[in-house]
């Protein structure tokens, strides 16, 4: 089984920049354009890794160190989350470490954004902190629902029941968790309706504005970290629904990857079809995700505990 873990990890590292490419391609299709190629992020990453950087005069050592720290946090989170039935590290209660690794990445990005001394980054940092605060409870409660369903205190176990057939009796719980996780996925990865990844207007920026002052390899690290984050969230959503009846490693992996790309296409469609929410409405949507996941938790507990 050991080699399967490493094959999965290598696939995650290699294939994750494809997801933003697919999303952008779908959005261009809706806009009537041909759009950038699916492999555009790979071209961008290689180009950035070959360049030098320009640092802001007001920044300190932290801006230089931040991208490495952020990427390290996200990669460690990838090591905890399983993919296709295999995982590298698991222990009871690792869901808490998982959520707090994302919180750690967020706070490092906030500090680095404030380091530049610009009001744009400060604004993005404030919004990122606030929306992260609201998305975390929904995320952890949804994961706890899945863990209760699987009966174990470690995230690794939630992918045991990863086929639609096995969710027969608990279809309401499945739908509720899907809604909550999808909202959190859109929020944490800075997609519409929470943030517009294509805009550079300060009115609509959260994540994009925090990375304005990075360039060169630093920017490459940050972009790669965002695509890894997309991969992690997509994995969780997709592995829930792919019928893993084959128990053959290559078939499972192929199905999972296919599922992730279908989710990327769905994300692109969602981004093209709805508009960005007013910032005052965002807490309401995130609290909706929290309530939905709490209802799902209560439903699953009445099933399991009694």
């Amino acid at each position, binding site marked *: 089984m050991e080699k399967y873990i490493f094959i999965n990890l290598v696939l995650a590292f290699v294939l994750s920049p494809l997801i933003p490419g697919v999303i952008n391609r779908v959005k261009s299709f809706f806009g009537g354009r041909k759009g950038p190629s699916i492999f555009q992020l790979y071209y961008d990453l290689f180009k950035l*890794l*070959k*360049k*030098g*950087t*320009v*640092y*802001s*005069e*007001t*920044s300190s*050592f*932290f801006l230089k160190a931040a*991208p*490495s*720290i952020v*990427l*390290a946090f996200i*990669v*460690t989170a990838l*090591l905890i989350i399983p993919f296709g039935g295999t995982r590298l*590290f698991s*222990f*009871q*209660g*690792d869901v*808490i*470490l998982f959520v*707090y*690794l994302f*919180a*750690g990445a967020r*706070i490092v990005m*906030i*500090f680095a954004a*404030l*380091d*530049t*001394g*610009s*009001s744009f980054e*400060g604004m993005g*940092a*404030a919004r990122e*902190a*606030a*929306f*992260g*605060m609201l998305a975390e*409870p929904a995320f952890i409660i949804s994961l*706890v629902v899945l863990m209760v369903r699987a009966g174990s*205190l470690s995230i690794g176990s939630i992918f045991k029941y990863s086929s639609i057939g096995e969710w027969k009796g608990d279809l309401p719980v499945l739908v509720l968790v899907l809604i909550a996780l999808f909202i959190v996925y859109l929020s944490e990865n800075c997609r519409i309706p929470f943030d517009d990844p294509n805009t550079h207007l*300060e009115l609509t920026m959260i994540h994009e504005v925090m990375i304005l*002052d990075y360039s*060169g*390899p630093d920017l490459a690290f940050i972009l790669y970290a965002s695509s890894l984050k997309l991969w992690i969230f997509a994995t969780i959503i997709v592995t829930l629904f792919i019928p893993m009846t084959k128990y053959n490693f290559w078939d499972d992996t192929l199905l999972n990857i296919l599922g992730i790309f279908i989710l990327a296409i769905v994300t692109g469609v969602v981004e093209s079809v709805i508009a960005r929410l007013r910032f005052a409405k965002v*807490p309401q949507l995130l609290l909706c995700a929290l309530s939905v996941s*709490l209802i799902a*938790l*209560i439903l699953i507990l009445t099933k399991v505990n009694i």
Partner: protein
Amino acid sequence: MYLILPALLILVVSGFLSLCCKMRIFKNIALIGNLVSAVMMLIPLFCSLIRGKDYAFSMNWSIPYGEFSLALTPLSAWFLLPVLLVFLFATIFGHSYMKHHTGGNTFHWVWFSILESAMILLLLADNIMFFLIVWEIMSISSFFLVMSYHNLDEVREAGKIYLIASHIGTFFIIVSFSVLAFLTSSFSLSHSVIFGSPFLVGVILVTGLIGFGMKAGIVPLHIWLPEAHPAAPSHVSAVMSGVMVNMGIYGILKLSILSSSALEWFGILLIAIGLISGIFGIVNASAHGNLKKMLAYSTTENMGIVLVGFGIGIIGLYSKMEIVAVLGFFGAMLHILNHSFFKGLLFLSVGSYLYMNDSAEVSSLGGSAADKKNSVHSVASIFGVFSICGIPPFSGFFSEFLIYLSSLYMIFYGGHLEVIIGIVVLTVLIIIGGIAVTAFSGAFGLTVFGVARGKKPEHNISTLMKLSLILFSIPVCLTLFFYKPILFLLGNVYSSVFHVNAATFQYQFIKIDHILYHMVMVLIVLLIIVTLLFIFRCLLLRKRDVSYSPTWDCGYHRLNTRMQYSSFSFSSVVTTFFSCFLGRSFRVKFSRLKIFPENGEFSVNLKDITYFYFVIPVAGFINLIAGWVRLLQTGRVQNYVLYVTVFLIFLLLWKLW
């Protein structure tokens, strides 16, 4: 054990000798005395903790009902550890800090050493009378320390509020201890279980909670905290916020242990109060732009988390879920230790900012990380913020992880009540954690990073101050990696307090050890990846050109430092969302009717709503009753003679009956 009394004597004497600081021999005496006595006291402390045994010492003295009896249990030793270390590091900091600020305030070290001795004796006290005497000494000496800058109006006001609140708390503690002495017919504090009517035990617990809670700073009894802690000098705030609130928690813990482990309602009460304190504290912390006030409110929040941990532990004991009890208590005790260190670190770093820039407001600070000379204290602030927000791999994450894990166990394996409590605790704790990230990343991020908003600092902090910051950062960073000895010590504390079944406890212990081992493995991998990526980046950039240019400003040339984000705007989402916990009023002066824009003014006034909704109604009620009683006092001697006569007749009739 016999090292403790001489160590205390050295401490107090060195404090008094610091009054002679004009003589060259005695200039650094307070520092040296503190160091020597701390080292001397660490020896019996670690003996007790590592072996898990109690040591006792007693002698008689002439105070009625009391005897001078000390008992060094592992529980006291656990609380004593942050006392000694935080005081030591704070003395190192305060030594240079007070030299700059004091101008003749030489009584400071006298009170400081008396405070430390009082706290040590408090943790060792085994007799109710002795405990109360030492409690009073602690309150008075800390009052004098708070009033160090007594020529400022707000400091005098703060000292007054602190003294009143402290004595109200003492009153409730006296009531609680009186009922305790009545029930057990002895004045000793080291029982294992009290048997008595549930009502009386309930009275002991609730009055003890109010009394000790006033010192611990839980809502709604926390009014004095945001006034007194900012008013004191920074190292005194570090000591008060890091260590003195632990005394309140120690009292609550001792009372709840004494009253047998099967009190479910008290556990629920602790959890409820803890969660309310947590949310209230952190929301108020995010709304204040003054760093010291924010840290004071954050103390309220952390004490709330500690109470939640204890409440979960008590409920675990009640419902016989051993793992929940163990995790809850371990998490709470560890959070007490971690809180002392990271709160001390943060207060000392705010003290450094005060020392350099003469202000603790975010709106006058900024940009310290960019300055090479300030790197020690910028990095220390960053570590403190990471720890207080609970980011792995720092110490704050360790204790919060244990408490979260206990709530997860309650959800998975508990009955109806435990499941509900577990869900509520998990949700609210995550929300509190999220608001803490917002608050601290905002305030400290705007202080450490960016561009300086006020004038440049004239003098830098001294080496001793840097040393104390580094000393504080060591436990903050490394606690998680030394989890094995810490778990062992915590296990000793737990088994000495609760007299557990060794076999099942060993099983839980191994389980927790296993979980933490894997977690530390993951975090070591994290650190390795950070290092590798950073090296990779440096290698990539070695042959490329790296240049510097102004921050991207969208083409606007006249950026000034005040255009950076401010702490008010940073926390605006949180504060508008949770505005029911804040008492904010705005004042805007801006005239729109002129042709050319003029200067406007915007001010925010933040008041603590507990003052309006709790203190004033309660005080009004007491005034009302006092008003009725005043009807008896007419001021005329004839009425008083009448009262005396009536009472004598009553006595006569009673005697005859």
